[in-house]
């Protein structure tokens, strides 16, 4: 039996169902009316739209953000690249068109065909890029023959352009087609296959700022693909510009000074850690990558034994040679193992165990105190300090100078270098630290490895009174309308473990290296500013006592020079490394001099 509740409710439900019935009839009626409107009233228009015309979505790529130097010069910009494309829907006999196009362009038919076949399965109204970045002549040629080439269209896309060519290529980085691994990253969600992204340097690190948001428009095109009506448009959102700390002028000077030799130069502002120039040689031309590099071009770069893609300033570590003596001196002073006037006698060699260790000066320096030891770079003096210090005290001090750790500049694959300790030695070789090693590390040989950037940052810290800064190469990010979105400010990594008194003494020693008559770095002397610095000659192969150094280039020593100026209120610090360049004093010092003098030319005011 129906329950009482049911029967009470029955009438109400009945009336509700009839209301529902009317709602259904009403809604279905609206749908039918709408269909009648679309298919009968507007039917002819829509029929035409579907037959002759097609609605297209065409992307308007957002121009990539610019990379500027500190003075606002464009280091990386955009230029149009003209691509020859085929719209399969608008062609009758693609085989024939491709054949004709190949003949006109004088290129390989099979490659065009390959491109065409590779796009099978896509809607026929989507264009297929057959050849990208053609020259203006080719473009004109194709356009005049377009009546013979149904379906061929020219599309213009922005391509990355580096107006200064190789200038600062390692900092700027290069572009490349996005790879599947990058596509899978969540922050790359808006990217699609075939997009170009930064592959190294600033282009990579600031990709998400440099890439704007693509816009596009919906257009109506006629049967041969000409736009006849734009139905809706979304403007691209422009990207942000990245302003670097480097100066194109100084960068150019640095790169020219290196010339064809393999090596690197870094110039920084000691008071902030701003990179003023960062050059690594050999360089590469990032323009070659902008539209996808040719296989031959890639082969050439990859097979170059000097690895032009490598940024030697940070991705390569070398023994610091005598430039490291400053650290040894600081450690010995701070540990109070020697006084400034403690003297040792240099007879040209030093015995340790049953081996004799040479000083670079065959006949010896005679009586040597600390000042003379640094100025004339006496090895024997530092052998003595090394023996007294041992590896671990020295390593502790070196860590305080920032060695053995990455500087944190924010460029990928930065090397940390190596500062050996007794523990490291035991782990590496399985035997306890050897006394002779203390001698090697004291003069920056042995297992010591530093990057040029680490070295210049350590010297910059000496120059500014002991603050170890984190270097940075991007000054700010600016929107297109000039609004500053982000500014990068100096960051302190730590303080040098050296007292004020000792620091100013060491600065005096460094000045002596350049300015005193017997100094090893006299080649860096300038008349208008007082330069302070240190030479270094890092051995590539051990030279047996009294032996003759080998002559082949690849066994020649690396030449170092690291300096800052003016001595008392330093505004620039520079490191120069020339691989297999021979002596630091003769090869690297003159280069540093060129850069320092150019810096004061640009900045103005030498006699500070």
């Amino acid at each position, binding site marked *: 039996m129906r*329950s009482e509740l049911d029967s009470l409710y029955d009438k109400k439900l009945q009336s509700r169902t009839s209301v529902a019935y009317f709602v259904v009839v009403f809604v279905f009626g609206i749908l039918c009316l709408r269909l009648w409107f679309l298919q009968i009233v507007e039917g002819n228009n829509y029929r035409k739209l579907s037959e002759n015309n097609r609605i297209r*979505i065409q992307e308007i790529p957002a121009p990539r953000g610019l990379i500027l130097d500190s003075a606002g010069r464009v280091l990386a910009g955009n230029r149009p690249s003209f691509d020859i494309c085929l719209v399969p829907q608008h062609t009758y006999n693609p085989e024939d068109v491709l054949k004709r196009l190949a003949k006109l362009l004088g290129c390989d038919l099979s490659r065009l065909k390959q491109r065409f076949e590779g796009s099978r399965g896509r809607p026929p109204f989507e264009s297929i890029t057959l050849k990208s970045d053609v020259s203006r002549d080719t473009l004109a040629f194709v356009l005049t023959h377009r009546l013979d080439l149904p379906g061929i269209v020219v599309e213009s896309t922005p391509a990355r352009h580096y107006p200064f060519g190789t200038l600062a290529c390692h900092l700027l980085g290069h572009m490349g087609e996005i790879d599947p691994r990058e596509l899978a990253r969540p922050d790359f969600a808006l990217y699609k296959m075939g997009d170009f992204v930064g592959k190294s340097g600033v282009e990579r690190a600031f990709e998400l700022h440099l890439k704007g948001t693509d816009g596009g428009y919906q257009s109506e095109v006629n049967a041969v693909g000409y736009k006849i009506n734009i139905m809706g448009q979304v403007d691209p959102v422009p990207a942000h510009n990245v302003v670097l700390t480097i100066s194109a002028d100084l960068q150019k000077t640095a790169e020219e000074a290196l010339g064809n030799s393999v090596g690197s130069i870094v110039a920084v502002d000691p008071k902030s850690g701003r990179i003023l120039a960062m050059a690594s040689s050999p360089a590469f031309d990032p323009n070659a990558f902008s539209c996808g590099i040719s296989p031959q071009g890639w082969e050439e770069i990859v097979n170059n034994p000097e690895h032009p893609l490598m940024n030697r300033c940070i991705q390569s570590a070398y023994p610091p040679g005598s430039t490291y003596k400053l650290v040894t001196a600081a450690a010995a002073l701070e540990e109070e193992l020697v006084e400034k006037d403690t003297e040792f006698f240099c007879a040209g060699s030093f015995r340790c165990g049953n081996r004799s260790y040479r000083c670079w000066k065959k006949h010896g320096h005679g009586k040597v105190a600390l000042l003379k030891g640094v100025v004339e770079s006496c090895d024997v003096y530092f052998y003595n300090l090394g023996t007294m210090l041992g590896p671990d005290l020295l390593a502790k001090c070196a860590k305080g100078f920032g060695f053995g750790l990455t500087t944190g500049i924010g460029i990928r694959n930065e090397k940390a270098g190596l500062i050996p300790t007794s523990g490291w030695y035991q782990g590496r070789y399985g035997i306890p630290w050897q006394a002779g090693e203390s001698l090697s590390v004291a003069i920056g040989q042995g297992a010591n490895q530093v990057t040029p950037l680490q070295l210049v940052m350590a010297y910059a810290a000496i120059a500014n009174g002991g603050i170890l800064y984190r270097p940075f190469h991007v000054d700010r990010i600016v929107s297109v309308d000039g609004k500053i979105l982000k500014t990068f400010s100096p960051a302190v990594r730590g303080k040098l473990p050296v007292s004020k008194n000792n620091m100013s003494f060491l600065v005096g020693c460094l000045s002596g290296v350049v300015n005193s008559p017997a100094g090893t770095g006299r080649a860096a002397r300038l008349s208008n500013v007082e330069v302070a610095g240190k030479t270094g000659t890092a051995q590539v192969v051990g030279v047996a006592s009294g032996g003759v150094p080998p002559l082949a280039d690849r066994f020649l020593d690396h030449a170092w020079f690291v300096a800052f100026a003016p001595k008392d209120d330093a505004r620039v610090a520079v490191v120069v490394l020339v691989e297999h360049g021979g002596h630091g004093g003769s090869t690297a010092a003159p280069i540093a001099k060129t850069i320092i003098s150019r810096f004061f030319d640009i900045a103005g005011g030498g006699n500070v």
Partner: protein
Amino acid sequence: MFDRRLISNFDWTLFLASLLLSILGAVNLYSAGSFSLHNSTTPFYLKQLYWLLAGLFLFFVIISIDYQLLARYSYLLHGSSLFLLLLALFWGKTTAGTHRWLQVGAFSFQPSEFAKISFVLLLSHSFSRSTPPRASQFQGFPLPILFTLITFVLVFLEPDLGTAALILVIFVSFIFFAKFDLRHIFLFMLSCVILLPCSWLFLEDYQKSRLFAFLSPGKNSLHAGYQAVQSKIAIGSGMLFGKGFLGGTQSQLRFLPEQHTDFAFSVLAEEWGLAGSLLLISLLFLVVSKGLKIASQSRDVLGSFISFGLVSILFWQISINIGMVVGLFPIVGIPLPFISYGGSSLISTWAIVGMLLNIRMRRFMF
């Protein structure tokens, strides 16, 4: 045990209309999916026919179980639906950033398609037991609301905006049907108005752009508006008698997005014109009105509630989907019952038809 009256009350019109609609859907899929015919995978229309067989099987299972029994287990049924939704959310197959699918062996299905049916069972069960004739005070209100919210949130998170909206619409339909006090309906509307802007925060970018595209087609019309424009062109160009089977240029040249699923109706309207679309709509109307009739003539309140709820699922899906492809409604992913490609959708539609017939067949059993 077997009662002859069961057979005599079997509604052949409803059954045959549903069958005809399913076959029309498969034929339409033959055209909509013809671009993939040369592929080695099973074509859409064939798969859809397999799903139809599965759906018919489920249909016969359902009509043989008394719906009162099913309603008694509705908490268990809906509980397991919710569990499957949770499972899909955390371990489901991810397609285009959504977690709507659960993979079982070689098959994957959408738990949300079944959740909406168990949801209706649950609501009917609790409403029919506790709703007083004069619904000025109600005891049975908090529990259904709680279940609605849980179901809504789980489906929304997947994210399946369309089905989530459907859950809410079903709930509103129930409130209407149960003839609640106007004050309560007003209260509910008010809370919806407050909740809606909040849900904006949870919308994915693509969902927002679809809403924008609907609200201002000229402005943000790129990809989101593209679908709507292409669909309208397809339908409109069909004119009175259409371009003929396999003759739709919009669909054959693949201008239509999702033409085998959500936009299947556009393909049909392009190829069969106004005549074809009206025939389809009439068949759908037949199913809906038959369902409403079952709701008004069932033997008890429970049967009325269940059949009304199920018909409202069908009705809202039909009107939202067609409304969307003809450009009267923003694009949300809701399939057209019987016509859109999809195993979960077709099988759950047949489960609904089964439940309706189940109730109809037992209307004179006391």
